[in-house]
């Protein structure tokens, strides 16, 4: 039965990925048949690296996204999960409140970002008195600010996501282990470090993987705000801009997609190695 998933991944994932790598060496407007494809070698890659201004900021922003997702939602999510796991009063309510943003679509979070951060009509500037005259703080239009406004909203959602993962993990930790640790005289911190944390190992891997995936596939929020321009560039947006549209640069967009694929590989390959090594051992 293993053949079915293999067939599906090959047909739906690997074959298209391979085709876009092939197309990245072509110049093609997406009109007419394959005979209209011109092979141009590395030209698209050369153009991306030399004369395509949005490329560098897009790579930077994807990396910032990744670092921020590692540093903020992952530890905060873990912290919230351990607090909620203590069964304090109203923990279900807190849990729902913190999990709520995960249910919202990222496009909707994009609209909320506009409502909060719009320079003249947004909540933030109106509350702080920065909505009029020369004191306007341009949260959405200043390329040094807008990425942070967007990341704040993205983290808000991601934290809830990570929290629910860890909460599920914590619930599966055998309570008798914790009791045993307590009987041996371990404090709360020691119990966490030596008993709970090792038990959370499989969840850590899941959190690691979703953190990487969510930061590399980030798209919706910035696309809703300004279609990913002016300080909100991301690789996924550049791929879309070049491939989807009135006249497409399929080859150029495919080259950008291939670069995104290579960046993903930098995270996927070490993960695969560690998984396979474990299987061999086991």
């Amino acid at each position, binding site marked *: 039965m293993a053949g079915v998933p293999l067939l599906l991944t090959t047909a739906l994932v690997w074959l298209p990925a391979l085709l876009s790598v092939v197309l990245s060496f072509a110049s093609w407007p*997406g009109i007419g048949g394959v005979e*209209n494809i011109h092979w141009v070698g590395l030209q698209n890659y050369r153009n991306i690296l030399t004369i395509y201004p949005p490329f560098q900021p897009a790579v930077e922003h994807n990396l910032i996204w990744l670092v921020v997702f590692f540093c903020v939602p992952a530890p905060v999510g873990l912290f919230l999960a351990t607090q909620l796991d203590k069964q304090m009063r109203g923990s279900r309510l807190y849990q729902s409140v913190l999990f709520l943003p995960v249910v919202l679509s990222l496009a909707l979070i994009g609209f909320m970002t506009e409502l909060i951060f719009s320079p003249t009509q947004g909540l933030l500037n109106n509350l702080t008195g920065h909505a009029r005259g020369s004191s306007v703080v341009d949260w959405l*239009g200043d390329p040094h600010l807008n990425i942070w406004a967007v990341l704040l909203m993205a983290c808000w959602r991601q934290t809830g996501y990570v929290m629910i993962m860890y909460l599920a993990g914590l619930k599966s930790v055998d309570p008798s282990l914790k009791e045993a640790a307590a009987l041996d005289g371990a404090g709360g911190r020691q119990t966490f470090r030596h008993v709970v944390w090792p038990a959370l190992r499989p969840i850590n891997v899941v959190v690691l993987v979703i953190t990487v995936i969510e930061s590399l596939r980030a798209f919706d929020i910035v696309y809703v705000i*300004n279609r990913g321009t002016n300080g909100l560039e991301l690789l996924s947006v550049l791929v879309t801009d070049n491939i989807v549209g009135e006249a497409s640069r399929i080859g*150029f967009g495919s080259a950008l997609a291939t670069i995104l694929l290579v960046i993903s590989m930098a995270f996927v390959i070490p993960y695969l190695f560690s998984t396979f090594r474990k299987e061999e051992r086991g």
Partner: protein
Amino acid sequence: MSVTRRGLLRGALLGAGAIALPSALTACGSSSGSGGSAGGAAGKTVSFGSNAAVPQPKGAYQSLFAQAQRETGLTVDVNWVDHNTFQQNITTYLQGNPQDVFNWFAGERMEFFAGQGLLHDVDEVWAGIGGNYTEAMKAQSKGPDGHYYFVPFDYYPWAVYYSRSLWQAKGYTEPTTWDEYIALARRMKRDGLIPIAFTDKDGWPAMGTFDYLNMRINGFDFHVELMRKGDRWNSPQVKAVFDQWAQLIPFYSPGFMGLTWQEGAQQILNKQAGMMVLGLDQIGTVFTGDKAADLGFFAFPEINPKYGQDAVEAPIDGFMMSHSPRNHDGAVRLLQYLGTARAQQTWLGSNPADIATADGVDASKYTQAQADSVKLIQKAAHISQFMDRDTRPDFADPVMLPAIQQFLNHPKDAASIIASIDKQATSIWAGNG
């Protein structure tokens, strides 16, 4: 062959891993072809792909098509699609199973698809409606091969808009030259107003200002050549446009890079701002009801006396026929009807933000701004179509939109920005996609 092509396209998209191709459009195309070739009643149905899914234009089109049925006996079977979705998918749409007739735009945007062989010419339609149109309109409806591919329906000018009551209270008068324009802006600033409402979060609204500056400084012919050939971006002429533009930036709305055009138009409506370069199609939807009479405008001021104010930016919307319509004769008859002043009048009844393209529309039903727009456009020696309609689609948005935003953030970097535009333009015009 087209199956291979689409398979490849989807493959590329899936490979990108970030996006799902909105293929609903193509799917709709094949399902609504009820105008079969079986003759009889079926020959009376024309399928229509519309980009007007939102209530306001949709309602106007519905009453128009109801009237078309009464007058021509043709049933119009419409596939309503969201405006941006329609635009994004047009290439896939035209290569799939498009409707017989569909909404589109004049200019390079029409010529591009005509040149790719994705359209049916509408010479037969023009044999019937030619008398309704000016020479300028005819020229905007032809492809490079001399055949007609487009039936114009409505259009609107870009100009400098203001609130009449605010201007009356402050005693401002319409400037006609650059110096008067700047002097007025200074005076507005002293009066505590935002002199020029300007907004560019969406990127495209700034293109109108570029077009006007370029046409006023370098003339219409230079502008169109620049847009169509893309080979003179790194030139002193284009540098002059950006230098002139830099003079305006200090007068713009605070935080303009984070504002939408709706927010800018509100600044005019609320009398916070003095003037704004925009299209009637946009600001006319903000100045509605009894506010409509308060909307005034003047032509973008003269910069180089050699060209004066001879060009007007006036994007034309209309219809095209897909390459192999199921009901060709019905499509021709429908387009001939849509090309009449009568049909356009019906549609305009509910739209204060556009004007008709055909001659002979009852102007007494126009608002003041609509009537003035007709005069402005008729006086013009040249009509441009807006940057994203006058140049290649793979150049306007992917290259010019971010480049202009970059300039507005860093006006001093104009020289390096146009050098970068030039390199990208060279590579785009040299390649085929």
